[in-house]
Structures are given as C-alpha cells and as structure tokens.
C-alpha cells in the first residue's frame, strides 16, 4: 500500500481543558476520499479543524499525531503552516458567505492568494483568477471577479471558495459540510464540481458531513464518529449497506427517507 | 429600576457614589467650613506652598487655595447641573414624542437635532455667552441645548426598540391612551438609559464649565471657579509648578466618578450602547452594525 497522504493517529482534542475527541485514527491515501460522518457534537468538525491547524478559541490538540505526507503538523508553528497551506492542504467550509471578507471583491481575495502563494504578478493573477472562476462553472467570470460577496448567491460563493482552495493546487482538500447551507439543487451542482475536480487533479478529499447521501456520492471510505470516538470505518458501500455498529445502523435508517437508496445504488 | 438598584451595589459604583457624595457635601457646606474668605488676600503669604495655615497653599495674590476650591465647587457643579437639566428636558421629551407623536414631528426634530450636533460645544458656548450677555447661565443654556441631541437620541433609540414590544401593543389594544403607555411602560425601560446618559453628560458638562471658566467666559474675575483657578495658576508655573494639581485633581476625580457610575449602571442593565458617544448622523453606526450582523 502507498504511504498515506494524511495519517491521523490517536488524536485527542481538548476544549477548555477537557478531552472531547478521544483518540481518533484513520489514514487517507493519495487520491482517496474519506467521509467523516456523525451527528453534531460527535467531534467531526473539531477533528477537521485540528487537522487544518485552526482549532476554535480554547480548543487544543491534547495528544496523538496528525501526519501530512509523513510530517507531524500538530506541533507546527504559524510559519511552518503558512508553507503547507495552499500547495499541500486547502479547505472549504459550511456557510461560504462568512468565509469571504465582506468588504473585498471576491476576485481580489482570489488574486491575493494567487499572488502571495503562487508568486503571480497583479495582471497574471487576474487572468488566472478569471480562468479559475470559469472552470468552476461560474458564468461571466470577469463580472463575478469584481463583485462583493453580498452580491453573490451561496452556491456561487462556494464555487469561489473552491476556486481559492484549488488555486494553490493542493494535494488534500478538507471540506467541512460544504453543501449544508445550500439549496438542494445547488448542493448537487457543488458536489458534482468537487467530484470533477477530484478526478481532474487527483485531489484527496476529507469530507465532513452529517449527510450520508453526500458522503455516499463522493467518498471511497467512511469513518463514523460518535462522542469523539470512531465507532466504525470501512468502504462506503460496505458501511452503508451493511453497518456493523448499532449507531451506524441508526444513522443509516434515519437517512433512508432522504433518498439514500437512490444515491447508493446509482 | 431593579437594574439601577443592582448597579448601586457594585463596588466601583459605591466608590463613585462616595466621591460624588463628598463633592455634593463640599458644594453645599463648603463656604461654612472654608478656613478663609475665598476673596481675602493675605499679602504676607503670596504663592505659598502647603502649610498649617493654608493646607493647599495660596495663589498669586495670597488667597487661600482650599477656600477658593470649596467656593468654586458650588459654582461649577450648579452650572453643570443647570446645563444637564436643560439637556434632559430638551432631549428626553422630544425623543419620546418623536416616536409616538407622528412623522411630521419626527422629521422636524431629527433635522433640528442634526443641526445642533454640528455645533462645536466650546465655540458655541462662547458665542452664546458673549451674545446674550457674558454670564455663566447664558453659557450653560448653550451647553444644555447642545446636550439635548444626546438625550434625544438615546431616548428615541430606547423607545423605538420598545415600540414593537408586545406589552406596549397589548396596551394599545386595551385602549390605553398613548400618553399612559409612555408613562407606565416606556418610561421604566428608558429610565436606566437616561440615568447613564445623565451621568456622562454631567461629566461632560463639568469639563465644559471648567473649560469656559478657564477661558474667563461666564464669570467675573475675582469669583472662584475650578477653571478660573487653573487659568491663574498658569501664569505662575515657574514659581509654583504644582499649583494646578489641586483643582485639576478635583475635576479629574469628579469626572472619573461620574463616568465610573455610568459604566456600572450600564453594565448592570446590559445596555451596551455608549451613551456618551452620540453620532453626528445616527445612520453611521447603524450601517456598520447592520453590515457586521449580516
């Protein structure tokens, strides 16, 4: 087996001095997609924030290791992180509007990353930015480039954020509930975009979601979290078709009514 | 009302009240406990340092600094209170009226308050004092008028917040008169805000009074005031560099106590709005906060 791109090893995360994630472990191979599922409070978002090195205030990694391409990033300094973020790891989040600076045009925020991380000059950055926006399926990309976040819809903003995320050509994309805040039709489009990008760029994906249908569509393997512990993990089809753990069984049963069958058997 | 009582129990509030109580007592009985006549000139002790006879020393014509401070307190505090009282009257009532008595009044009063806010305090007070006869009452009339927009805005903001509140609506349904609603429901909610604003306005007015009397506006020279004492000390700094310390400290401590009291009440009522900072156009902070909330 290839050496994993991301290896989470017995990760403990503490909030306010009390452990809330108790030894989560999983490996992510290059090009693979893993879904981290569980209900709210299961520790999936904290795990994901810890992997990105941006735990919320008062939250710390209290034990274990997070190895990115073999290096433990859990003790990284800000400077070390800034070298890794962009070319190695990038992220998109729930509620895209809040992750863009409200007083800068979206294009300026994309240009900034291209200039700082990829060393492009102002003009080249703009050209590349418009290309990227176009390849995200945004119509009239030049126009979108010069708009402020409040002028764009949630789906468009998430495409912009995905463009920013892939602009540094990362190995790993961490997506924390990327479609939860979007309309159902827009959800499907954004999921298709992520799937297409995976195929095009050999992007590894760590997808955090409470929605098994989303995970079923995008992920090769599933890790089920409950109360900060892994209760079950394995290939997506196996886990969803034949869950071993009673909690997973409950999750799957809860999701049947949302059309999970249709997606799994497609 | 509960919030006000709660605030008074906090330690900084107690300290502030103690200081203010002391100032009021000094103001009330200052001239009876003053060791000398504030105008008496002791030619044998000019610009003297602190001593057993003159606790705070003497000024450039040998007048007792402590006695002048005590006498000056009354003038300064009464003048500031006059201005704040007028500001309250001219601010709170139109503020309530602008919410409950129709759009015409609302529009007119907003424009007038905007106009008043563009007037710089000190220069306007100087102008009024001069044009209406050089007296402290005239100057305080001007300051009171300029304080009105602050009271107007906080009252109006509190009342607008309440306009949609259910119990006010219910009151209207039950046929209560508008004036009765204002009196019983709104007043209780507006009161803490007004008290906070009064304290900060009092602090501001004291500063303005001191500034004006420092400039010699509103008082005839021999009469003692906090600002006037500082002005006369200014000419003799080389002989008596610590002369301004006593009047300056008195001003600073009183103002600090008023601000501390305002903060304590504000904390206790959970009213985050800074009452002292009244914007030129209310739209500015509104637009910001709206954008931040988005």
């Amino acid at each position: 087996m290839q050496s994993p791109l991301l290896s989470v090893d017995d990760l403990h995360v503490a909030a306010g001095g009390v452990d809330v994630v108790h030894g989560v472990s999983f490996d992510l191979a290059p090009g693979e997609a893993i879904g981290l599922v569980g209900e709210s409070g299961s520790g999936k978002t904290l795990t994901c924030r810890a992997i990105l090195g941006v735990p919320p205030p008062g939250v710390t990694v209290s034990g274990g290791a997070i190895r990115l391409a073999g290096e433990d990033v859990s003790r990284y300094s800000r400077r070390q992180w800034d070298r890794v973020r962009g070319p190695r790891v990038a992220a998109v989040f729930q509620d895209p509007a809040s992750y863009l600076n409200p007083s800068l045009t979206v294009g300026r925020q994309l240009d900034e990353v291209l200039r700082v991380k990829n060393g492009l000059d102002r003009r080249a950055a703009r050209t590349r930015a418009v290309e990227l926006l176009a390849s995200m399926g945004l119509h009239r990309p030049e126009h979108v480039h010069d708009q402020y976040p409040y002028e764009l819809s949630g789906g468009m903003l998430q495409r912009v954020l995905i463009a920013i995320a892939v602009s540094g050509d990362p190995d790993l994309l961490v997506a924390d509930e990327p479609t939860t805040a979007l309309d159902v039709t827009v959800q499907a489009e954004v999921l298709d975009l992520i799937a297409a990008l995976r195929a095009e760029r050999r992007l590894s994906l760590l997808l955090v979601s409470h929605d098994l249908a989303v995970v079923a569509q995008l992920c090769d393997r599933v890790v089920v979290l409950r109360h900060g512990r892994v209760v079950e993990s394995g290939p997506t089809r196996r886990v969803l078709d034949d869950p071993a753990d009673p909690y997973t069984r409950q999750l799957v049963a809860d999701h049947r009514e949302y059309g999970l069958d249709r997606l799994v058997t497609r | 009302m509960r919030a006000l009582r709660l605030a008074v129990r906090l330690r900084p509030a107690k300290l502030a009240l103690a200081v203010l109580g002391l100032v009021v007592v000094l103001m009330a009985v200052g001239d009876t406990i003053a060791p000398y006549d504030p105008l008496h000139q002791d030619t044998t002790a000019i610009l003297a340092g602190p001593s057993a006879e003159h606790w705070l020393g003497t000024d450039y014509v040998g007048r007792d600094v402590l006695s002048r401070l005590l006498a000056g307190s009354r003038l300064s505090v009464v003048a500031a209170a006059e201005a704040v009282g007028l500001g309250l009257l001219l601010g709170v009532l139109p503020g309530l009226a602008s919410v409950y008595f129709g759009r015409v009044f609302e529009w007119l009063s907003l424009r007038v308050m905007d106009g008043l806010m563009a007037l710089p305090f000190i220069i306007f007070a100087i102008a009024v004092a001069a044009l209406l006869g050089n007296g402290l009452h005239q100057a305080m009339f001007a300051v009171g008028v300029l304080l009105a927009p602050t009271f107007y805005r906080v009252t109006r903001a509190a009342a607008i917040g309440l306009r949609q509140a259910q119990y006010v609506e219910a009151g209207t349904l039950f046929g209560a008169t508008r004036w009765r609603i204002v009196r019983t429901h709104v007043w209780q909610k507006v009161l803490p805000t007004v008290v906070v604003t009064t304290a900060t306005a009092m602090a501001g007015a004291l500063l303005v009074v001191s500034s004006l009397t420092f400039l010699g506006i509103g008082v005839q020279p021999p009469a003692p005031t906090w600002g006037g004492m500082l002005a006369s000390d200014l000419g003799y700094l080389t002989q008596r560099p610590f002369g301004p310390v006593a009047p300056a400290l008195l001003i600073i401590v009183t103002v600090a106590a008023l601000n501390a009291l305002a903060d304590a009440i504000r904390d206790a009522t959970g009213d985050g709005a800074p009452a002292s900072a009244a914007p030129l156009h209310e739209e500015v902070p509104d637009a910001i906060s709206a954008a931040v909330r988005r």
Partner: protein
Amino acid sequence: MRALHAVGRAALIAVPVLLISTFITFGLGALSDQNPAAAAMGETATQADIDRLNHEFGLDRPFLERYATWIGDAVTGDLGRSWFTHIPVAESIGQRLPVSLSIAALALLLAVVLGAAAGIGAALNAGGWFDRAVTAVSAALSTIPAFVAGIALIVVFSVLIPVFPAGGYVPPSQGVGPWLTYLMLPAVALSLDSAADLARQLRTGLVGTLRENYVTGAVVRGLGPRRVVFGHALRNGAGPAVAVLGLHVPRLIGGAVITETVFAMPGLGQLATTGALQGDVPVVQGTLLVAIALVLVSSVVVNVALARLRPGSGRTV
C-alpha cells in the same frame, strides 16, 4: 463611482444641517442686544451713533433678509466686518485658522498613530498584560480634559525639564522644526482623549473581527499573520473606530480653542474669546460658521472613508 456617490449623499445631508446650525448661529446674534456702536464706543454711544452704525452694518433691515445676505456673502468668502476693528472677519479668520488647524491636524495624526498602535497591539494580545495596560491607561486619559493635560505637559516639559516652549507659535514658513516644536505639546495634550477612545474602539472592533470566519479562512489559505491582520481583519474591525474618529474631529476643533489658550497661541480660540468678550457679533458668528463648516466637511470625509472601508454596508451615510 461608489466613493463619488457617498460624497454626494453625505453632502446632501450636510446642507440642511449647515442651514439649521447657521440659522441658530445668526439668530443668536439677532437676539442679542449687542450693536456696533455699543461695541465700539461703549456707554458713550448716543442714539444717533447707534442708528448710524446700525444702518452702516445693515442692521435696520428685516431679520430674514439679513440672514439671506449673510449666508450668501459667506458662500463667496465674505463674513462681514468686525464691529470693533472694522477688519474683515474672513481676513482675521484666515490669519488664525492655520494655527488652529495645525494643532487639530497634528493632534488627529498623533491620535490615529498612538490609538492604532495601542488598539491593534491590545487586540492581538487580548487578555495579556499589554491589553490590560492599554485599557487602564485609556480609561485614565479619557477623564483628563485637554487643558488640564496641557498644563501638566507644560509643568513637566517646560518648567521641570525645559525641552519644549511653554507657549507661543511660529508659522512653518520660519522653519518646520521650530513650528513642530511649538505645536508638539498642545497637539499631544489635545490628542490624548481621542487616542484613548480610538484605542478602545479599535481593540473592541478587532477582537470581534479576529473571531470571524473569514479571518480563519484567510489563515487557512496560508496568508501570513501581517496580511491577515492588516489586509483582512483591520478593514472590517476599524469601522467603529473610524466612526468614533469622526465624532472626535469636532471635539478636536473645539478643544484646539481651549488648548491654544493654554499655550498662548494666536488661533481661532483667541479670536472667538476676544470677540465674545467685546460683544463683536460678526467675529463670533464668523468663527462659529467656520467651525461648523470644518465639522461638516470632516463628517463627510469620515462617511466617505467608512463607505470605502466597507462597501458592503450599503447605506453610506
């Protein structure tokens, strides 16, 4: 385009404000029983003198007509003549305005520099010793009136350690160095209160903004700390501070009047005070009008700055 739009809207709001406040100003002059003869000749003025001078200064015309003439002339830069010296008011103001503006502008600059440094430093160390020190010092400074601070500065830096002059003024044409030397103490005295308030507002604004998702987003994109703070957080966190700065500009202009008296500088304050004590109505009205205009111009500038800072806020004034 956006900026131009903002200027337009702000100016539109300023016009009625200017009219109302100048009307109040002018009305005061008319209400007073001051007249040019009394101002110039005092008790010796006869009724004939009063009538003659009243006619000469146009005071025998109806009030509204006089206001219209006054405001019309003011637009063209004519503020009338002093009742006392008969020197054009605009000329007197023109001589003294640079002094007051120098003090106010330097104070504003100092306030922004000191306030921004303290506020940003405090926000980045929220809860640390620097943060607590900034909070304590700014609370203390905001209770000290500018003229008391001025006296304290004179005592320390002119009397005890004589490094700065205790008062006076030289224009920059006689050397920028001496000019700054004379301005430094008054400007520092005037700036303290504004610097303290600015630091407080900036700290609060930035602490809030640094918790926003888009700041986390910028960090995750691998942008450096300086870029995140100055390029992303400050732009949004500075809004309330800029608004507060707008409120302080009138205070600085008013405060300059007091401060220049402390430091015996020939500015607008001296003109207004002497004019006031002499009952020289045109001088007082003219000074007030210029002060109002300065306040309104600065409020327009602040509103435009806010609009540029946060284009998304929609309403600009």
